[in-house]
């Protein structure tokens, strides 16, 4: 590949992710509105929100690490997007693979954790402690699922994993070949989004929105951007692992939005779990399903 082409891909992939991610935020809000019998926000609302937050007059910083944390939270996802193949663009997906992507996706969380820590607010710190605990809960079933998929495909290279699924049409999709793993993956993916009933680390009624308690203006704006990337990354990763990726942009986006709609719809129907209940749930059902699924694969 020509270097110029690669650079354009590396720039385009995060940009696409951001735009699609904003539309996913919109979809999430529209679904919530439908379920709560409201009209919901207009099409450009996510963009308005980001612009508004960045241009606020009062921007409270609690120190350099607070700033760097937000930069890391955004930057980590921008980097992660280049490892996630989309139709027609693979970026550097072949130089990292799925394990690297999984670990690169922890960098934004680490940045956020550092930034929140610097704020010196116990609500924020409790939120981070809970968020990391949640990560310990859902990452265990998630890695079982990823193990199963990578072992079945015989590679950790996401491009190859997608190619294997596309080789025989619908029948070779991960979800058809490994349905048990696909269910386990869906549950783990839901928890990783941090939406109800798993939003233990936001918990506005208990810890005053946890990590966001000291975030104002562009700090909150940065987290908003991060959420766009997070929704995009999570659903696209699921589509790449189980739904055969995308051959065209149309079916790629259709699949991604549909996959995301499942946890989002469930989220607005449920209240919140306690931390230990999340752990118990995650370590029991998706882990069990995942192990059964892996046993089929081996």
């Amino acid at each position, binding site marked *: 590949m020509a270097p110029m082409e690669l650079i354009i891909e590396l720039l385009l992939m*995060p940009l696409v992710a951001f735009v699609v991610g904003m539309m996913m935020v919109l979809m999430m809000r529209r679904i919530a509105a439908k379920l709560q019998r409201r009209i919901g926000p207009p099409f450009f609302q996510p963009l308005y929100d980001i612009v508004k937050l960045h241009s606020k007059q009062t921007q409270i910083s*609690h*120190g350099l690490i607070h700033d760097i944390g937000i930069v890391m939270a955004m930057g980590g996802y921008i980097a992660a997007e280049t490892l996630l193949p989309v139709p027609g663009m693979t970026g550097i997906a072949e130089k990292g693979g799925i394990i*690297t992507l999984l670990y690169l996706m922890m960098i934004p969380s680490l940045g956020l954790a550092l930034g929140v820590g610097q704020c010196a607010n116990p609500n924020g710190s409790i939120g981070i402690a809970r968020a990391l605990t949640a990560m310990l809960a859902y990452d265990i079933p998630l890695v079982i699922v990823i193990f199963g998929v990578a072992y079945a495909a015989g590679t950790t290279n996401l491009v190859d994993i997608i190619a294997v699924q596309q080789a025989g049409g619908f029948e070779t999709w991960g979800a058809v070949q490994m349905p048990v793993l696909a269910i386990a993956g869906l549950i783990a993916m839901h928890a990783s989004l941090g939406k109800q009933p798993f939003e233990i680390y936001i918990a506005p009624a208990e810890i*005053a929105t946890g990590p966001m308690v000291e975030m104002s203006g562009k700090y909150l704006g940065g987290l908003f*951007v991060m959420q766009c990337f997070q929704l995009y990354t999570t659903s696209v990763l699921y589509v790449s692992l189980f739904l055969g990726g995308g051959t065209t942009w149309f079916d790629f986006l259709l699949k991604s939005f549909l996959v995301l709609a499942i946890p989002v719809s469930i989220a607005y129907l449920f209240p919140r779990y306690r931390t230990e209940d999340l752990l118990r749930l995650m370590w029991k059902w998706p882990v069990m399903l995942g192990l059964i699924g892996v046993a089929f694969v081996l």
Partner: protein
Amino acid sequence: MTLTLLDELLLFSGVTVLVAMLLGRRLPAGWMVTILYGIQLLALMKMAPLGYGGEPISSALTFEVMGQTLSWRFDALSWYFALITLGSALLSSWYACGEWEQRFRQSGGNLWLFHLAMTLNVFSMLILLASGDLLSLFIGWELVSWAGFLLMAMAGGVATKAAMRYITYAMAGAMAIFGGIALVYVSAGSLQYEAILTAASQMSTAHLWMLVILFGAGFGIKMGLMPFHLWQAPAYAETPGPGSAFLGAISSRMGLFAILLVLVKLFGIVNIDSLKIPFTLIDARDLLAWIAVFTIIFPTFTAMKQNDARQLLAWHGIGQGGYMLLGLVVADAMGAAGGLLHVFNHATYQAALFMAVTAVIHRTGTADLNKLGGLVVRMPLTFMVLLVGIIGLAGLPPMNGFVSKWLVYRSLLNEGMPLLFVAAVIGTLGTILSVYKLIHNIFLGQLRIEHDNVKEAPWSMMIPMLILAAIIFITGLLPGIPLAWVASVQQAVGLPVSDYTLGGVESASGSLDMIWVIGVLFAGFGIGALIFYFAGGRSKRVHQLDNYAGGHFLTADVRYQYSDNFYAGLMHLIGGWYRGSFLWLEQSVKSLVEFLSLGMQGLYRRANAEFYLLSTALFVIAWVVI
């Protein structure tokens, strides 16, 4: 007799011990010793071809003892471990020079003993690494054990108690190793490596089992493998600062070196694989792998509960040893490379972490995670070193720990071992939780009023820390540098060699190129920074007490820091699983020994001649009858 390069190295090392012993009471002793470590490192560098597949170098010195030849030699394996040993010794010793030394002396520490113990440790480790047969290996092993004891025990009080516990374990291990050596001699008729290598393939199953258990347990004790791990954390944590950095970096890896040499190289991983455990589906190699993952998980989650920064790090040191063993036991090209690379990586970040924590103790007088907080504004560079260190320890990109763990994961995936893979990841997740607690409770959150005047660590301590941080990052960016040494170690011990590049590993089933990954990551940070600093309004820095407190006003005397019972929600669920079973096990062994010795004592203290006569007679009758 002409001196070989190896003789020069050992000679320099011996001279360093002498200098520390004779001139150690003079003031610039620390600098002298540090320079001498530097000279040793230069002598080691003259042997650098070893790290790139060069021929082994023998010592000119050999002994004949009871028909056995004792010899010393260096190959790629010895060179690799010696490099880590001398590197961590040089930097720890450098760190100790200057302000730390003065403070240590003022607070009543014995500086002479400290330098002597350090130099003895390095010297004995080099002797162990250079061993050319099982007898010289055993001599080196004993020297290392006792030198370690000296360094651990020197602080007195709690430290002596921890060191006594260590030496009890170490002696038990030495007994096992000695038994193993005797067994090898019986079956192979020689203690030379070449003779054992040929004899190993013809050994009976029972014989090999016995040897694996004896050597595995003996060397495993030094590594802190489950269930012999209890001694390590208290012993390392109580050693004076730079000493714990050195011990934490390399000391217990001597156990791994010996396992590599004896179990992997001499007995061969294939032979071990053929040892089936009756009535189960697993073999000796699976057993070792499971010991490795339990060594990863249990100490890591014990670390998470620690409230002393040094204890926390020392417990992680045990856990990380599990990754090294796991990679080696999987023993394919990637796994072995990962396990071996982790030895180097672990040494770099563990030393940096212990140094950073020692710097905090130097400035604030405490390592209690409930009595610190907010120090990032006072000690930003130390914070940065600790941050680099914990990213390495947790095994996240862009630091070097990621590469070695990635290799281990990949090998488990390739070999289709899902449970071991998941267990290894659980260890990593637990590490992330634990190290966030470490950095949060020391450097983030509220700065205490009594720490308002704390200064950054002095430069004498800062420079070695920054060098280590740089090494952690550079070997993360260009893992090909250490992977070249690792490849020649793999060759030397007869393991398959992976296809490495400067930026990582090349493989048909998924490659890794850290140069690209890190390049993109930093580009991402750059774009993030552009958005944050130029697309948003100007931010205003506020005081830490200018904070949301649910309508209350915060004042300096309000403790507004969340530190104790940090993972409360997690502990609700798993708190009950910490049962101290291994402590109980240790206690019961101790009680049993006490009981037996009491019984023995009672027997002959009574001096009852009739009783002895009667029992001897009964014994004889029983023997004759049966």
